[in-house]
C-alpha cells in the first residue's frame, strides 16, 4: 500500500472541501493512500516511525478509511466526501444532515438510492453531500454519507457493500 502523509496545506484543503457538512477540525494524522482514498491515524507513532514501518513491512492498512477526494464523472468537478466511520468520529461537528424515515432506512441498508420527499430537501440546494441519519425511538444514528441529486429528488447511497443488509 502506497501512503503519503498529508501536510498542513493538503489537510486544510480537505477540511475546506468537507466543511459544507460542518466539519472545521480533523484532529488526526491524515494519509492519502492511492489516488483518492484518505485515511486517519490516531496512533502514537510519529510520522517518522510510521514511514519506518512502511519502508520495512508490507502494510495492508493504516488507521481508518476516512474519506475520498475524487472527480465527479458527470460534472468533472473535484469533490470530497467523508466515510460513514469518519462521520461517527466527527458527529459533534456535523450539521448538514438528512433524516430518513423507517421505510427509507430499510432501503438505505439494502444499498439503494432513496427517493426524497419535498419536505426533506427544502433546506438544500442540490448536488451536495450530506450525513444520512436515521431516527427511531428518539435514537439518532448516522448511517452513512449520501449525495442529494441536482434536482433534489434522489439521495445517492454511498454505504459500503460490507455494511449493507443482505436480506431483510
Amino acid at each position: 500500500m502506497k501512503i503519503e502523509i498529508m501536510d498542513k496545506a493538503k489537510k486544510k484543503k480537505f477540511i475546506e472541501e468537507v466543511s459544507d457538512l460542518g466539519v472545521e477540525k480533523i484532529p488526526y494524522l491524515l494519509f492519502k493512500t492511492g489516488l483518492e482514498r484518505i485515511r486517519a491515524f490516531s496512533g502514537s507513532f510519529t510520522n517518522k516511525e510510521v514511514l519506518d514501518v512502511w519502508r520495512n513491512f508490507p502494510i495492508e492498512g493504516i488507521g481508518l478509511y476516512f474519506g475520498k477526494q475524487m472527480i465527479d464523472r458527470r460534472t468533472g468537478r473535484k469533490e470530497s466526501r467523508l466515510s460513514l466511520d469518519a462521520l461517527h468520529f466527527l458527529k459533534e461537528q456535523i450539521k448538514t444532515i438528512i433524516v430518513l424515515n423507517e421505510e427509507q432506512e430499510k432501503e438505505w441498508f439494502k444499498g439503494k438510492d432513496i427517493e426524497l420527499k419535498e419536505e426533506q430537501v427544502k433546506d438544500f440546494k442540490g448536488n451536495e453531500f450530506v450525513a444520512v441519519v436515521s431516527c427511531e425511538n428518539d435514537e439518532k444514528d448516522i448511517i452513512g454519507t449520501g449525495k442529494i441529486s441536482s434536482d433534489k429528488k434522489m439521495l445517492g447511497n454511498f454505504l459500503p457493500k460490507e455494511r449493507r443488509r443482505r436480506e431483510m
Partner: protein
Amino acid sequence: MKYKEKIKYTPKEEFVKRMEELLGSKEEAKKFFEISYTDTPDSIRCNTLKISPSELKKRLESYGWKINQPFASFGHEEIMIIDEKVGGGGRKLNPGELGKTKEHLLGYFYVQEISSMLPILVLDPKPGEVLLDLCASPGSKTTQAAALMENKGTIIANEINLGRVGILNTNMERCGVMNAIVTRMEGVAFCERILKKTKIKFDKILVDAPCSGEGTLRKSPKTFLIWNLNMIKKIATTQRRLAAAALKILKVGGEMIYSTCTLSPEEDEEVIDFLIKNFDIKVEEIKLPIKLRCGVCEFEGRQYSKEIEKTCRLYPHDNDTDGFFLCKIRKLSDKCLLENKHGGRI
C-alpha cells in the same frame, strides 16, 4: 450447524484418552464431549469507541432480548450475553439475526465468544501503549484492544494470510479502529525484521497462536475429523517459534499473552515450558471471574516447570464457553539461551 448434523462427527479414540487424562476422569471427559454438540451462548462485546454499554443494552433490549453482563462486577460492562432462556419477554435468536441489526452494521458491537475476549482482558492494554497482535485476523482481539486503548497508542496487527487480512481490515473499519497499522507477514519473519530493521519494542504483545482448535468443537465439529497427533506436533513447532520470536521484541518488563483455542498440552504448556527454559521470564497469575483450571505440569509422562501451574485452562463445560488456554508472561531481561539471539530460526 444443527445438533443432528453435529452428532455425525465423533472423536477419535486417542483424542478421548487424552482428554480423560487431562480432565482426570471418564465422567469429566464425557461432559466435555457432550457439550461439544451444543451451541455456545450468543455473546457480544460492546464497541466502546462508538457507544456506551448502557445505551447499547437499552437498544438491544428493545428487540425483546434479555441482556446479561457477566463481567460487570469485574469492571467490564461491555461484555454481554444475549440470554436465550428468558421468561420476561426474551426470545431465542435466529441464526444471523445479530449480524443484521443496525447496531452491528454500524459497528456498535462485535459478535465474539466469551473465551476469545479473555486474552485482552488479561493483557489489559492502556491508552498510549505500543501493542503487537502477531496473529491478528479476524480482528476480534485487535478491535477489543483498540477500544480499551481508546484509539490512543499504537497497535500493529499482523496477519500472514491475504484473505484473512481482508477480513481483519473490514472488522477494524466497522469498529472504527484508528490507531492500528496492519501488516502482512509470516509471524517469525515479522519479529526478526522488527529486530533487525527498526528500534520498535512493544509494551505488550498478544500471540494468539494458530492451533488445532480442540476448544472450538462447538463451532467446528469437523475438527473431530481432522484431529491427529502429527498435526498437533507440527503446529506446536510453529507456536514455539512464534512465541520465542515475539518475546525478543518485547520490552524488558513488558507483558505477553500466549493463548490458543486448543487444549493439547503440546500446543499450550509445552510451549510455555520451552519459553521458561530459554528466556528470562516470569509466568504471572491470572484472575478472572470465571472457573479456570491450572495448567498441567505433567502429561503422558512428560514433566513441565512448576511455573506452568499459573497458566490457565478453560474447559467448555465449566462456563458454557469454548475451550481455551491462556498464559501471561512478564519479560525480566533480554537474556536468551537460544542459539542466535538476534532472530535466528528456532
